[in-house]
């Protein structure tokens, strides 16, 4: 079973078998569009990503659920 784990923007990203995505242990729902060959998620509804890892990094960096910057 292939597994990729990395820390990005303070979040732990895990991808199992190139399909199962978790960020900080939370399972992330995502969609793959076979026509456009792109990945997307409800967390970032305005952007398509070329890979699951690229999507995961964007979620970690840009969503308030995973990214928190103090004032």
């Amino acid at each position, binding site marked *: 079973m292939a597994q990729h784990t990395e820390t990005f923007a303070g979040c732990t990203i895990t991808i199992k078998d190139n399909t199962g995505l978790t960020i900080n242990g939370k399972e992330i729902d995502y969609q793959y569009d076979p026509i*456009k060959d792109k990945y997307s998620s409800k*967390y970032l509804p*305005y952007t398509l990503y070329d890979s699951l890892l690229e999507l995961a990094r964007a979620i970690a960096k*840009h969503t*308030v*659920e995973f990214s928190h910057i103090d*004032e």
Partner: protein
Amino acid sequence: MAIRKDANTLTAAERAEFVAAILALKAEGVYDQFVLRHANAIMNAIHRCPAFLPWHRRFIFDLERELQRVSGNPNLGIPYWNWPSGGSTASMWNDDLLGGNGDASGVVRTGPFRAGQWSIINASGVSSGPLMREFGQNGFSNLPTQTEINQVIAVTPYDRSPWDMNSNPSFRNQVEGWTGPNLHNRGHVWVGGSMLPMTSPNDPVFFMHHSMVDKIWHEWQLRFPTQGYLPATGGPFGQNLTDLMNNTPSGPVGSRPIDVLDSVALGIVYDDATPQPQPQPTVLIVGAAPTQADIATAGEVDVFRFDVPAFGAHTMATAGPSDTFMTLFGPNDANLEVASDDDAGENFNSQITRTLSAGTYYLRIRLFSPNATGNYAIAVRADGANPNPIPELTLDGVSINATLSAANESDVYRFTVTAEDTYTIETSGATDTVMSLHGPNSQIPEIGSDDDGGDSFNARIRRPLSPGEYFARVRHYSPIGIGAYSIRIIRGN
């Protein structure tokens, strides 16, 4: 009445009024309720789907009503972010309205929504830090241009199957940004930061952004008054004309797409909404040499018109190096789809051969790839001797039994009147037929039509006719309907 103005043209007093109203709603907790309404909607029920435009029209309309309430100004409208003149140096980003870009970390530190004055929430309603912006840092360095907006406003129909981000051609999909030059999505991504996730209403520019999106839809509706919202029926639940839209509360305005189609009825006025004239189709002559054409910008759709003087087989075809996609509409209705084709012609060209009744037809040509450009030639020809002569109805004779065997098919019959009298042409059977009557001595002029004047859902036309040759055209009420029927003509009362 809400008067929506270009955000960059607001007076100092108008800016102050808008900011004060937003801050008042934030203090009440009402503003955050709007953030949650968007954040907790089903993504694919309000984006990447036909309801994208009506859902957001209702959404910003509701916020506008709240702004009017707290400001005491019944004419306060949400300003629109005029993208072509709304770049990072535009006055809407000044400290008296939205404030500017984020700092090196993306934190907004200027204007009324700066860190310490304004905090954002996550989808659970928990305060999650300051407002963030990163102008042009997430893949789009430029905002949509007026040329790109004009290109999208020329696209029809409103939407089409599969009713998602692969719909093409689709005005909705191009406005949203999954095909064509990318308008709406690009605005979100250009701002970046808090405008990227489903909690994007955290940034007040969200509402100005969608005021602009709504203005474009409004102008498209003015330009194409006969192009309605689609799907009327048959689409995914929540997307049809009379379906309830996801996460849209009941209120003074209904929660269905049909309830928000008319901006004027909602009391919305844009300061400069001027409909552009509908593009005039290029006229093709049946049998003439091919006409050269060009898809100069990605996503463009060319429209052609041609007249068929008499019933018969015709072939419409493109030629050249481009992978074209052709859709045929008519007769006499630019929105009634007859057939479409991708590669029936040579070398990825499109071609349709069809027996056509007399009338005016329209061809829409696009390239198969929404991202491609290229040239092509197009021609229409009549295919010589008609292998299917028009069947003749005999006065007071036996009925002719026939079948509408394909979507959008229509059958044509002729009959000859030798003495002036009253005649009845009628269909019978279980199929819901629609009939039109043409003549005398020409298939073009329509002198009568009927849907359900006969028994059950059958058609019946009864009228006095002078001597001459007449033509009756029969189609199914539904563009996708098929079925058997009989037709006959009776003389006398």
